[in-house]
């Protein structure tokens, strides 16, 4: 269908886990039997349709397939079977400025990071000023980012990703970074994004952030969709299942659990 921004049909994704895989030629030559990989189905048949302008949150436990799903939308993994179509320019919010080089200055890194996200250099030139002022780094922008604090690097990374002006924004965990004032700015930017009809897919354990930005949520469990619906319903179903699990584990283990 033309009118959906992301369309996924019966998507399956298997990863091969090589236990004792020969990662060197020597061990490959020395092993007489080639070990068989264990096949791990990260996604076991997912159907999903996201409309333009929609903000979809994906929740679920570690290992439920959330990041794999995001990776397939971002063209990082190829589906084992099924169909995936994403329309428009896709941008990924890179955590902690992955792709930055510590020896380069802030400005140089902006161009580099823009290029990694697929932006032409001449288009970047028009965006640079906005990125610098959004990141609040005017004084430091010509210094190598190895001299930046962690928060400054995160602000710069966030500023580049949102100024790239994608049609579809994929977010893994980091939606708002920095101190409270900057986080508020991040949320404002997300809200603007939503108003202008862009699609956001947001994978997170931070259920407060999910409730705050997402209109719809998908609860992914063991590679399949358990609940797909309004954010409140999906999150409620997810949290109550966690609570049940905690009870099942009994009192002794309850303290250690970190299922959330």
């Amino acid at each position, binding site marked *: 269908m033309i009118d959906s921004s992301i369309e996924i049909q019966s998507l399956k994704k298997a*990863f*091969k886990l090589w236990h004792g895989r*020969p*990662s*060197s*030629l*020597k061990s*490959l030559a020395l092993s007489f039997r080639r070990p068989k990989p264990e096949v791990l189905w990260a996604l076991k048949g997912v159907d999903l349709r996201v409309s333009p302008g929609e903000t979809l949150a994906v929740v679920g436990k570690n290992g439920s397939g959330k990041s794999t799903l995001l*990776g397939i939308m*971002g*063209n*990082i*993994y*190829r589906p084992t079977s099924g169909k995936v179509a994403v329309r428009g320019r*896709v941008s*990924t919010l*890179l*955590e902690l400025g*992955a*792709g930055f*080089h510590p*020896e*380069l200055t802030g400005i*140089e890194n902006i*161009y*580099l990071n823009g*290029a*990694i*996200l*697929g*932006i*032409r*250099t001449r288009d970047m030139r028009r965006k640079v000023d906005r990125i610098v002022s959004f990141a609040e780094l005017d004084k430091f922008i010509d210094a*190598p980012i190895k001299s930046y604090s962690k928060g400054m690097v995160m602000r710069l990374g966030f500023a580049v990703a949102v100024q790239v002006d994608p049609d579809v924004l994929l977010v*893994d965990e980091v939606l708002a970074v920095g101190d409270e004032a900057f986080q508020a700015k991040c949320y404002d930017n997300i809200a603007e994004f939503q108003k202008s009809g862009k699609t956001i897919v947001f994978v997170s354990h931070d259920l407060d952030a999910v409730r705050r930005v997402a209109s719809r949520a998908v609860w992914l469990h063991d590679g399949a969709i358990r609940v797909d619906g309004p954010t409140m319903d999906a999150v409620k179903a997810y949290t109550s299942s966690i609570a049940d699990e905690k009870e099942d584990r009994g009192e002794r283990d309850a303290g250690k659990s970190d299922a959330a």
Partner: protein
Amino acid sequence: MIKQLSELLRYRDLLAQLVVRDLKVRYKNSVLGFFWSLANPLIQVAIITVVVKCVMRVGIPNYSAYVLVAYLPWMFFQMSLMDASQSVLMHRDLLKKVYFPREVLPLSMVIANLIHFLLAIVVFFVYLLVYLRTPIVVTWLFLPVLVLIEALLVTGLTLFISCLNVFYEDIKYIVSVVLNIFFYLTPIIYLSEMVHAPLAAAGRGSLFALYQLIPLNAIIIAFRKMLLVPYTVPPHREIAAQFQNMSNMPLDYRFLAIAAVLSIAIALLGYAYFNARKWSFAEQL
């Protein structure tokens, strides 16, 4: 392959940014900067020249130029292969987070090294014209062709190596061992005639043909023949008598043509191989 190439073209700014990054970062904190990339070959060639002239007593005038003209393309070959073997692995975090055509990683390494090579060639010509005062020869016009052939060869090999190194990290060690062998297998510190003379004397001239079928050998021989005037053996030195019957051989164009065809084939195969396996990088790393 056409589709892959057109996508690569769309990401040409990323390629350019990565090349710029590599050039900037390499000398960011060094005072002498680009000088260091020249210092290494110059010192190497100086040592080789001293050994060959004073210890091995080969009395060929301007021998340093004959070594340098082979050593610079060798440096390009060696540095590109070493850099590229790590290029994909080095960016494993990025590969798992964002999509871009993966081949920009090894290709940017090749281009950065190519730029170093071209700058070194400029310095080489200054050395020839200002210091040695050798005559200008018309075959200098072939230089771009030679560089192109070598660049294709290097590109193909780096695509194979960078890809294989993701799956088997032994590759980088194998590469450095093989490069070590090739340094002596290739006519860099010696002249190709020194290989030919004993083979021809033993009636094994065909082995020399085999020697030239190795693309890198044919390319390095061509660099030497095209950029420098034929070497001369001064007659008055009795120590050079052994080289008297070793006449300067003209460039055999057939072998350069074969090297060109092989280089194009290696580049295409390398690209196809890389493209076939690049999807599994993110899953492997």
